[in-house]
């Protein structure tokens, strides 16, 4: 069965599961777009600065769409959801909140392009797998949003895959740096597939497919790249830093929230 907004509002268990899933989707995109915006002006070349910025805007736009769907389900004002929720309420995967590298975006940003490429590529592929699944979601507004997101995601994936393949196969320092970044990413990759404690409910209501299915499809999608680049992919991925879906987060998230909410928190009641 397909649920419209009115149907979801009449079924509390369904609504709760949908809200939980939407928080995961919104928070994932929001924090990664924020990390992308910190890169502005610091990318390896000007052309990349323009392209990366465009991707971060798309991603921020997707977050805004998901927060809007949450708003319709009675979760609150989109700007408040994005700017004012404490870290313990955030549902993003920890891999996405990690800093871009040493320093801050204002002072001595010694950012790591290898980590940026690996994180964005792995995430874009995971998001692609999820979005494909969400196109068949029982929640109609989410299925419609997935179709829109999917069109832009095609380019994100292509972009990051190109960077990934070029740098992994470059040899020397580039390959070593990419391997180090992959090790970090694999160590927390499972956080991307986790659906949290309401995962079983989400699957039961046909909101999205199971974690196992999503993970399997990710591995499948990556396998030609892994084979052609001779990448050492672990059998099992980790969640070393904890599960963000449960509200567990690193101090990196708190400092990001302090920055991104600085003006908003100056006067949350004001119109900006």
């Amino acid at each position, binding site marked *: 069965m397909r649920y419209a907004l009115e149907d979801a509002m009449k079924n509390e268990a369904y609504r709760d599961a949908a809200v939980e899933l939407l928080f995961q989707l919104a928070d994932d995109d929001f924090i990664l777009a924020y990390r992308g915006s910190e890169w502005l002006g610091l990318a390896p070349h000007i052309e990349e600065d323009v392209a990366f910025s465009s991707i971060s805007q798309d991603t921020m736009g997707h977050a805004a769409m998901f927060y809007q769907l949450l708003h319709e389900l009675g979760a609150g004002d989109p700007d408040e959801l994005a700017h004012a929720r404490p870290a313990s309420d955030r549902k993003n995967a920890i891999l996405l909140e990690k800093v871009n590298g040493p320093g801050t975006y204002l002072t001595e940003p010694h950012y790591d392009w290898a980590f940026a490429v690996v994180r964005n590529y792995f995430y874009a592929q995971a998001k692609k797998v999820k979005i494909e699944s969400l196109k068949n979601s029982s929640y109609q507004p989410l299925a419609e949003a997935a179709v829109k997101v999917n069109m832009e995601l095609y380019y994100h994936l292509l972009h990051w895959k190109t960077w990934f393949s070029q740098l992994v196969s470059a040899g020397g320092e580039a390959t070593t740096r990419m391997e180090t970044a992959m090790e970090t990413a694999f160590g927390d990759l499972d956080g991307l597939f986790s659906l949290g404690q309401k995962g079983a409910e989400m699957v039961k209501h046909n909101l999205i497919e199971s974690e196992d299915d999503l993970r399997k499809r990710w591995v499948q999608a990556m396998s030609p790249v892994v084979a052609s680049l001779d990448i050492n992919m672990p059998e099992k991925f980790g969640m070393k830093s904890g599960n963000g879906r449960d509200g567990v987060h690193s101090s990196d998230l708190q400092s990001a929230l302090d920055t991104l909410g600085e*003006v908003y928190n100056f006067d949350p009641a004001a119109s900006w």
Partner: protein
Amino acid sequence: MVNPISFDQLTEEEKYQHFIERIEAGEKIEADDWMPADYRMTLIKLISMHGISEIMGALPEKEWVPKAPSLRRKLGIMAKVQDEMGHGQLLLRVVEDLMKPLGKSRENIIQDLLSGDLKFHNVFHMEAKTWGDAGLIGWLVDGAAIITQTNMLDASYGPYARALKRICAEEVFHAQHGEAIIMALAEGTDEQKAMIQDSINRWWEALLMFFGPGDASTTGTSKQDTTIKYKIRTKTNEELRQDFFTKYIPRVLSLGLKLPDETMHFDQESGMWQYQQPDWSKFKQIIKNNGPKSKDRLRLREISYSNNKWVIDALSAKA
């Protein structure tokens, strides 16, 4: 038109005459056309400064991108700063073609920036302390840029004129984006109103300086005569500054803001705005990279350059 075979046989003087006749007739000079060395050098200097200013100009606003106070503002300012980087890229492409016969490339432009040989616009050496500054940059700095760039839309050098057409179209959106931020603040709380008054007080002198000195007597040199002679621009610095006043002073006042210059008034007799001159010796210092944020922002470019060197090396090894 002279046919190309006989053109090669002309003396330098005849080629120059032919070139002047072309630009006088409103023809566009293209990258591969003959041009006097002086014209080429003037363009390289002007457009590389413009291009690198777009790129350095992204940095003060970039400080506010992650902090923008709503989802809508975050999207707006991300798009705006991306446009500025895009303009930088477009302009550097134009300069690259002009530099090619001299055996120079984009690498030289970046090196010249880092060494201090290539200057960037005075406004981008200033601090952007508040969200109000982020709005003011979009509104008045981009507003000022529209005025100077519109003045060159018909530039005799075709590739620059075409790049400017696209840039100006986008700058109009930027000015609207900035104005929307300022309007929200102007209609907001007392603190928000105070925020924009503070911004305008701090940015006023930099905005006056934006158009450059009235003539060479203030700073020693001025390229405006050369650029006018070569039909790259039409109006003088002072004419542009006056256009800016005419367009923006009424708007500033209508928002209930005060001008930080009490002497400022429109003199009916001369048809000119009378105002307190900024400290031009300070201007000279600022563009020599001794402004409040010059070193910090150059440091950001330097870090980006050195941190990503392995990426560029990896890409060029593959090419």
